[in-house]
Structures are given as C-alpha cells and as structure tokens.
C-alpha cells in the first residue's frame, strides 16, 4: 500500500529466483510508488534484469509475491501484461518493418480497438518525434530513433507502468538526452510510473525519484539519490554510494552472475547495431 492507501505500482515480497544452482534474486522486497521514476542500479549480475523479468511475467515466479497496481502477477498474468510497456535492453524494433508497422503490430497485440488503432499509432509516433520517418524501414533509423520507436511501441497501449531495461545503452550523448527528454515528457504529461535499470549513474541521479542499489540479488539501499548521497557524506557522489554498497573489487561483478557473459555479449551486440 502507498501512503494514500492505494496499491503500489509494484509491490514485491520475498521474490527469489534461481538459475540452477545460482541464486540470482534473493528474497527481494521492493515497492515502487504510483507515478514515480524508480531506478534499479547494480553491477552486472546483481539481479536487476532477472527482477524486472520476473515482475513483467517473463519468468515464472519461483518464490515470493508480486503485484502490479494491486493485481497479483501470478494469478492475473494477462491483465498485468495489459498494464505494462516494456523496452528491453537490446534494439528490439523489427528492422524489416517500417516504423508505423512496428507500432501498429503492438497496437494489434494489445487489442487496441480497430476504430482507434490508426489514430493511436500516429499519436505515439508524433509524441516520439517520428511522424515524418514513420513510413521508412526501421533499418534506416539511427540508434536514437530506434529507441524512440521502441518507446512508441511500448506506449501504444497507454501503459500504467513503463519498464525500461538499460534504455540508453550504446547511444551517443545526444540520443541519450533525447530519450530521457521523451521519458520526462511522458511522466509530466501522463503520470506514467517508470521502472528502469541503467549503468549510467549520472542518468539515474537526474531522472529517478528513487533508486534501489542491488548486489548479489538483494537490495542494499533504497532512497532518493540526494538522500543516499547525504547519508554517506556531504560531498559524496552517486558513484561513491554505488561503490559503498556494492563493493568495487573486480571479482564482485561476476558473483552470482546469470548475466555476466551473456549481458556483456548482449550489450556489445546492441552497441554494434548502433554503430
């Protein structure tokens, strides 16, 4: 429950997930308030992506309870999916379709009524600044445009929760700031709750109302970036907070790693596609 008595956007208690003998997420308790931007930070293999994948129904819930806006993820899977807009880490727009076709596909998969479909597709394309490029194949888009196209795909359902897994990975600084401007505009205009992971601490500092620092499958610290920094020392940066809670030894980043090799390979593949 939130302070106003309404359900939290995300509430999870005791979430635990194992990949064979590796404990990826360890009895995680997490609350994301309605309307806030919450960032999950942590080294590779900390369990961020596994947590997100469990929250959005991509992974079966092995142990623990998860609800989105009060709806039990285990029991109301289809209903919960209807509330989510998801942008994965990889560049996931279909390069063999046009921008418009990419968005229209998700409008159909989310059962946007036929009478509203065309208007809704054009609306989100315009919102993401892609109206003019909508008729071109996505293969001709720049990395930043692809990310904005993916946001358009995620938004066509008017989701209550936007889940972004490393949304600016591999993008140049201009494209990164454009993506964040679009996300900020969405929050301001529609009050969309945003749950994101990122490795860019400066972005988390600027964009998130609260952050959760994960390490070895557990949340080590949760709070507003300013509060977490102040807790450590008056001159502390978010990087100092990160190092304090997660350790900075090289070996740490592969502990309990589901994603060590796979994550890096995926990140490099995304980087290659972005040029």
């Amino acid at each position, binding site marked *: 429950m939130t302070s106003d008595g309404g*359900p939290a*956007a995300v509430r999870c208690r005791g979430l635990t997930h194992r*990949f064979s003998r590796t404990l990826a997420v360890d009895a995680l308790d997490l609350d994301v308030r*309605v309307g806030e931007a919450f960032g999950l930070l942590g080294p590779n293999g900390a369990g961020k992506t596994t947590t997100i*994948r469990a929250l*959005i*129904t*991509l*992974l*079966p819930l092995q142990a623990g309870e998860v609800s989105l*806006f*009060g*709806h039990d993820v285990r029991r*109301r899977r*289809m*209903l919960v*999916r*209807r*509330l*989510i807009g*998801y942008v*994965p*880490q*990889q*560049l*996931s727009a*279909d390069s*063999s*379709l*046009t921008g418009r*076709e990419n968005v229209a*596909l*998700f409008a*159909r*998969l*989310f*059962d946007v009524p036929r009478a509203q479909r065309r208007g809704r597709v054009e*609306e*989100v394309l315009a*919102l993401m600044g892609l109206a003019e490029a909508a008729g071109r*194949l996505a293969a001709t888009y720049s990395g930043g445009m692809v990310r904005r196209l993916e946001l358009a*795909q995620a*938004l066509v359902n*008017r*989701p*209550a929760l936007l889940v972004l897994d490393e949304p600016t990975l591999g993008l140049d600084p201009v494209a990164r700031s454009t993506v964040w401007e679009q996300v900020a505009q969405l929050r301001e*205009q*529609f*009050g*969309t*709750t945003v749950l994101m992971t990122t490795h860019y601490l400066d972005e988390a500092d600027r964009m998130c109302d609260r952050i959760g620092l994960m390490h070895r499958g557990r949340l080590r610290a949760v709070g507003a970036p300013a509060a977490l920094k102040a807790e450590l020392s008056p001159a502390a940066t978010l990087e100092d907070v990160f190092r304090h809670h997660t350790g900075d030894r090289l070996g740490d980043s592969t502990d309990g790693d589901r994603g060590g090799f796979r994550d890096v390979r*995926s990140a490099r*593949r995304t980087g290659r596609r972005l040029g």
Partner: protein
Amino acid sequence: MTSAAPAAPAAGWVESTGWLRLPSRVVTLCLLELQKLRHDPIELLTRMIQPALWLVIFGTTFTRLRAIPTGGVPYLDYLTPGILAQSALFLAIFFGVQVIGERDAGVLAKLLVTPTPRVALVTGKAFAAGVRAAVQGVVVLALALVLGVTLTSNPLRVLAAFGVLVLGAAFFACLSLVLAGLVLRRDRLMGIGQAIIMPLFFASNALYPVDLIPGWIRWLAYVNPLSYQVDALRGLLLGTPSNLPLDLAVLGVVAVLGIGTASALLGRLTR
C-alpha cells in the same frame, strides 16, 4: 495521447482465455509475415532457386528416363506436389532460427509481455510460416504450369491444396520451434536442421512412391508427416488416388501436438 495512463484495463475488457485470442493473434502474425515479404521480395526469389532446379533439372530429366513408376502420370506432374511440400519444409524447418534471432534481439521478450498466451503466439508464428510457404507455393505452381504440368482447374481443390500446404508448414515450423526450445542456440539448431531435413525429404513419397524405399527404412516414410502432406497435395492437385481424410487427420493431429509442445518450451528461450 489524450488521457492519463490507466492502472486497470478499460471497462468491458474481458480477461479471456488464450483460445479466444487465437484468431486475432494468428491474423496479426500472418499479416506481419506478409508485410515482411512485401518489403523483401528478394528473399522469395532466392528461396525459389532450389525448387526451380528440382523441377527444371531433376524433374525433366527423370520424366525422360521413365525410371520411376508413377501410375501413368508424367514424372514432372508427379514430382510437383513433392517439390511444393519440400519448399515449405525447407522454409519451415529453419523457422526456429528466426525465433532464436528474435530472442537475441529482444523481440520475443516483448511479444511475450503482450497479453498474448504462448499457445496463441506459437500458433500465430506457425501459421505465419504457412503463409510464407503459401506465397512460395504460388510461384512453384506457376513455374510448374510454365513447364507444362497439368494441374486441376477446380479452384476449390487448389484452395484446399494451399490449406494442406499451410498446415504442413505450420507443423514443421512447430517442430523447428520445439528444437529451438531444446537446443536454445542458433548454430546447434542449424546443425540439427541440416541433419534432419534430408532424411525427412528422402524418406517420404515426395520423389518416388513409398513402395520403392528399402523395407528396413520404409517405416520412416509411414511416420513422416511429409508423406501425408504430399499424398494430399497429389490427390488434390493431380487427382491421383489418395487417402485425404487420413492425410488431413495426421496433419491436423501433428500440428496440434507441435503447437502444444512448442508452447510449453517457448519460455525456455527467454530464460
């Protein structure tokens, strides 16, 4: 956008079962396949090279040789339904590679987070492979007509033949998805696909009657769904004797089994 993001679906929305979503998802994913084909017709042309070679070189040569008993039907005519089924098989058996590519690109994860039950997603993808096979089939049949093959002029029989083609391709696409769900890697699936594609093709009635196959391996032709697909296509397109009810029953049952098994394994691809 004109309204704030809702925390619950619109009033009137029914949290229905997968079966109710099945038709709309199948149509959506088939349309998607047609859109991709429209943007990349070169792929269709390159895929046509192999069936064209089978018909033009193998077919015309063996027609002259008269080495294969075909019950009075010219060999090229006899071969055409076999090549039609083969072109669909070759396309569908590597469909899992495409899905592994979608997994690597994050597309599959995005599809699985839509309100689409896995059985609907797999059925949609399987029939999308069927649609691609049907488009390819149109070109194969056109080429056969140019080569002088006599096909039925009954449009209903032609339509039914395309239905059989789609059903067979859907099954083999599911087989490929099952293998993808088991091996999880593109290179492994390519190897397995290459290993099974020729046994599936040669241990069938696509090129010759099953009776000509050595006895110790003939059983393989009888359990091979490709044989039933070719038998149905021959009956529908050439009017040769066939057991259409049995053929359709076998193809229908294996397609349902394939969809069920592939749906159960689909989650493994995203873990």
